[in-house]
């Protein structure tokens, strides 16, 4: 089953075209990594899928619902409010710099959306939060505030916060880029565990060895275009594409 379907997506910031006719899809249970140099449009693509940016034209479908589509008359329309709200719930996003709510405890960071959006009862929301914290190895942190945690712990809380809404697909926007190298590993381990559980994920990352290890499929983007798409083996070991090669050479993989 296809969870995300992106077709002919175009996006410009004033005069700069950041996404040029992007198309790809993501299946249930699949882990897709998007790699590419800075400014290649990979984060923007993720932000369009999570509806933090509006696209100029093209189609984005989440599950079987269209978030946005362009019809044959080239008119691009976004879904109505209700559909939009349902789509939002099915896509989670983990940010590069966590964006936890600093004035909420760890517990409330995870329960707030469940209670406000899903109308889950407080007890149930807390139970779900405790399960997730346990899974993230943060059982003793529920009453802590984000500033009391290390970067890696904060990022794990933000993953728990996203998972609490039981999204169909979880997106990661360079989840380790704001972390010290020695903290990177703990986040990558969490994502690996999620991959084992067949969580559908889309990961924008600069961690090449990680992308190679966990992905079912890798997309290499540059200057707003998908240059190459394929299995990690194909991309990292057997690519014939000059640009892909040039990019990967810098990482020594």
């Amino acid at each position: 089953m296809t969870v995300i379907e992106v077709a002919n997506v175009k996006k410009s910031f004033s005069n700069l075209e950041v996404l040029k006719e992007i198309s790809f899809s993501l299946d249930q249970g699949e882990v897709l990594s998007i790699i590419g140099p800075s400014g290649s449009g990979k984060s923007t693509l993720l932000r369009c899928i999570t509806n933090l940016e509006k696209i100029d034209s093209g189609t984005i479908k989440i599950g079987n619902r269209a978030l946005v589509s362009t019809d044959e008359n080239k008119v691009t329309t976004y879904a109505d409010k209700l559909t939009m709200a349902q789509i939002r719930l099915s896509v989670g996003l983990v940010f590069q710099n966590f964006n936890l709510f600093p004035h909420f405890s760890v517990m409330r960071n995870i329960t707030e959306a469940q209670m406000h959006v899903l109308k889950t009862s407080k007890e149930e929301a807390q139970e779900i939060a405790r399960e997730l914290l346990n899974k993230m190895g943060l059982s003793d942190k529920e009453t802590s505030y984000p500033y009391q945690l290390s970067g890696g712990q904060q990022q794990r809380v933000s993953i728990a916060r996203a998972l609490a809404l039981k999204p169909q697909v979880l997106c990661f926007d360079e989840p380790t880029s704001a972390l010290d190298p020695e903290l990177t590993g703990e986040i990558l381990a969490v994502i690996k565990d999620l991959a084992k559980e067949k969580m559908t994920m889309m990961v924008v990352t600069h961690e090449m060895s990680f992308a190679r290890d966990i992905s079912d499929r890798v997309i290499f983007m540059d200057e707003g275009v998908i240059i190459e798409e394929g299995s990690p083996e194909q991309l990292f070991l057997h690519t014939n594409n000059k640009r892909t090669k040039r990019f990967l050479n810098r990482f020594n993989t």
Partner: protein
Amino acid sequence: MGKLLALMLTGTYTSLKIFFLTLIFSLPLGLIVAKGRMSKIRIVSSLVNGYIMIMRGTPLILQLIFVYFAPYYIFGSSTDRFTAVIIAYAINYAAYFAEIYRGGIQSIDKGQLEAASVLGFSKIHSFTHVVMPQVVKRIMPAMGNEVITLVKDTALAQTIGVAELFRVAQNAAARQFSTTPIFIAGLFYFIMNAIVSKSFDLIEKKLDYYH
């Protein structure tokens, strides 16, 4: 001496009424003004900006006189003096508070709203539960300044004949040929502001549970 103190306490009561009523009206009004100032609708933001410029760019004493006398010249009738004071102070302080709120709101990292949006929070919930609590903490020092100024600004109400603390003290000084009542008034203002400062300290401490 007892009679003097009784008089001054009556004056203080009037000053405190002006103080609290001004806060009650200007604090929420300031938020509306701030929202207007940040509006994407050009005409709204420029109108509100003009209002803020006038309020901050002219003396409060002049605004007070205007609010009290303008209705008389335009409509031939005027509001009572006390009401005029509250209106003038509320719209003046709302302009200052609005700019403080705006600074606070714009200082909140936009990632906070993005996180709220991705989690499905409504716009209102994001504003009331994510943005505002953080804004309140950040603007406390600036608000403290403004509120302390308000305590002292209540003395201007005498311009249109409202018998607040300073007016009462001046009258007593004139009767007694002595400056003592004025210094006592000074002490009263000082005590009121000591309480205001202490309250703000307490609130800041209370909000210190996170960074």
